């Protein structure tokens, strides 16, 4: 009998120990280590880290899901977000408290979707506008924020008012709040341009090719870019498509084709300019390509303004040599991208979430965005331009004189998969696939996955 009991006990213990491993993951409301304790923990432990909970039993706890590890990050914008969270938790101590669920960018949407599928949608989550946001708006996962924005004039603090929400608006309703704007520009090495005898910045396609030719003749690598990180090459392709008048909405609806002459021309231009890339572009990652620029191994870099912090952080001496101009030949159109916050439609603490969102767009956070983060603020905040990186003023000039903006090509297509397919096709064409063959594969993809849906 004793043996049987022992067997039962051992078996129960085995099952319990196995099942214990299944519990607890994703419980973001559990008490977490205090901030100073958390700082000493390794980065793996920070993957689903929470901030220190406030004392008191009536505190409204909310969760915010973010795509970077706030304890380990060196990204200046993420550090600014961390400060904002700490500021919010301190100011609202005893009333609201935000717990942060962090993950790395690559796994962000997969983990967010897993939480949504499990019925544990975070109260607030960061998201990129475009098809990534569509996924949460269409099935009603993201809440309509229009009334909250209009209730107390919050919307009026944004630069351009309601116009600042064009990428976050669906059928007249706003589903996310932008936090900052980054514009894709051409960063250039002023010393190399001077040495190559280029005194005026290119304003059209031929001017860009001429500048590349002069730089190459002067012994410089004209352009550094990453094809190893596909979206970098795709960003250039997006500019070329837009300059040729490609209408993405028309392609998405099926009234235009990827085999149209304007797409072919744009892609031929991509092949044409690729002879000025650094020889290792095919394998270089985004970080390596950017390093080529700030290490003065190449004269130009086509990149978003988020790269300013990386450039200046890695080589502070380079700030004074770094100029910025708008991508030529786009008729005043600039690629712009923003981080945005969405609120769960099922949150039981909407007031806490809205209060939290407002901290990201208040003057303190927006000043930081410009003065430290090097991104364009979304509000009308006045910031000290002398504190901001020199390049931000150039980017602001480009952005301010832009006639209109458009999103990243891969984030403006019908689905995220279509965007990724576009990226891959451009890389494939750069690597030698004939233009017609590459575009035909893109056309086939749209036939099978977009137009017939």
């Amino acid at each position, binding site marked *: 009998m004793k043996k*049987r009991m022992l067997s039962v006990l051992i078996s129960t213990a085995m099952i319990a120990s196995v099942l214990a491993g299944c519990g607890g993951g994703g419980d973001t409301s559990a008490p977490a280590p205090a901030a100073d304790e958390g700082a000493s923990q390794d980065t793996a432990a920070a993957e689903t880290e929470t901030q220190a909970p406030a004392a008191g039993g009536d505190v409204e706890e909310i969760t915010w899901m973010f795509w970077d590890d706030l304890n380990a990050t060196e990204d200046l914008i993420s550090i600014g977000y961390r400060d904002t969270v700490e500021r919010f938790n301190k100011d609202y101590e005893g009333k609201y408290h935000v717990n942060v669920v962090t993950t790395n960018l690559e796994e962000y949407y997969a983990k967010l979707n897993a939480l949504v599928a499990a019925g544990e949608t975070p109260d607030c989550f960061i998201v990129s506008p475009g098809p990534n946001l569509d996924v949460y708006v269409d099935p009603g996962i993201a809440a309509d924020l229009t009334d909250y924005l209009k209730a107390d004039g919050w919307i009026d603090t944004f630069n351009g008012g309601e116009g600042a929400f064009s990428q976050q608006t669906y059928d007249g309703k706003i589903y996310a709040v932008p936090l900052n704007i980054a514009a894709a520009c051409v960063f250039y090495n002023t010393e190399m341009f001077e040495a190559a005898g280029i005194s005026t910045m290119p304003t059209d396609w031929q001017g860009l090719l001429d500048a590349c030719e002069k730089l190459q003749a002067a012994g410089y690598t004209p352009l550094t870019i990453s094809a190893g990180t*596909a979206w970098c090459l795709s960003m250039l392709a997006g500019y070329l498509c837009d300059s040729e008048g490609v209408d993405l909405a028309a392609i998405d609806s099926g009234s235009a084709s990827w085999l149209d002459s304007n797409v072919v021309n744009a892609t031929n231009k991509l092949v044409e300019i690729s002879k000025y890339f650094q020889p290792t572009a*095919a394998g*270089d990652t985004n970080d390596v390509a950017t390093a080529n620029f700030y290490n003065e191994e190449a004269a130009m870099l086509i990149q978003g303004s988020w790269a300013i912090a990386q450039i200046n952080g890695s080589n502070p001496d380079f700030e004074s040599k770094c100029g910025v101009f708008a991508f030529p030949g786009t008729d005043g159109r600039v690629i712009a991208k923003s981080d945005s916050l969405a609120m769960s439609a099922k949150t039981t603490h909407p007031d806490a979430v809205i209060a939290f969102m407002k901290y990201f767009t208040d003057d303190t956070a927006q000043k930081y965005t410009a003065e430290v983060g090097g991104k364009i603020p979304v509000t009308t905040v006045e910031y000290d331009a002398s504190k901001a990186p020199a390049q931000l003023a150039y980017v602001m000039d480009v952005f301010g004189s832009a006639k209109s903006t458009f999103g990243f090509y891969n984030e403006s297509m019908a689905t995220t998969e279509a965007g*990724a397919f576009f990226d891959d096709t451009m890389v494939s064409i750069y690597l030698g696939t004939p233009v017609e063959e590459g575009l035909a594969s893109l056309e086939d993809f749209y036939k099978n996955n977009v137009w017939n849906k």
Partner: protein
Amino acid sequence: MDKFLRDKKAIVVFVAPAFLLFTFVLFVPICQSVYYSFCEYNALTAPKFIGFENYKQLFTIDRTMKIALKNSMFFLIFSVVTQLVAGLVLAGLLTNIKKGRDFFKNVYYLPCVLSSAALGLLWMFVFTPKLGINQVLAQFGIEGPLWLMDTKGFIILPMWVIASVALWQYVGQSMMLYMAQISGISSSLYEASYIDGCTRVQSFRYITLPLIRPMVATAMSLNAIGALKFFDLIFNMTEGGPNHMTDVLATHLYQQGFKYFKYGYASAIGTVLLVLCLIVTFIINKFVKVDNYEM
């Protein structure tokens, strides 16, 4: 023992944990996955039954699936053949040396216990044009190829590179399996063969090989299944790129499921993978004949 086997309650108690685990952690999810493979499902909305639509698209339209199948088959053949040969050679060599056997055994086995993700990143850096092998080759005036980006040929260079890294990582495992089997062979058999005039190579051919055949079948099955569901090295070295040219079934499944949230479609790929594993295991067990000898 007979008394114990007659005690049905004890049997139930001991079998229950494994049965429950197998049922709820393996069997139920597999059944669920097979069901989802017939659905359009993105995890955010309820699954919608669409019949064989996912399979139709998988085998008639999806270009990446064709590439992934080709690459998985290449990986399967490469892994099974090279690990069989290299594992046997290493096991044969190490059982015949006395000095340094444990040292080399550990050296060859070490990559098996290291994290594949870390190794993938390490090798990715080694083959990155600006950082690794190409910089060494440049010292000798040789322009190295784009190890992980070249797209020429039926089986492209990155696949050969990744397959070679996988061989380096897992050959120790095959070697250990063969060595374990070889160490169980009675030394009297070898002594008798030497008395009869056999060379070491002949004794390996006529004694060792036939006697380790059961382990060959086991190791081949393990290698084949491992090769078919291979993921981590590829994901960390190329992420299936450029343009899906290095995708295998597992990376294609991951991208469809966790990047594009097409869980129904990803489940269809998973089902194909499961069926392939079953077929390959069946073929190996059917055609690698195992005779039981007294060792």
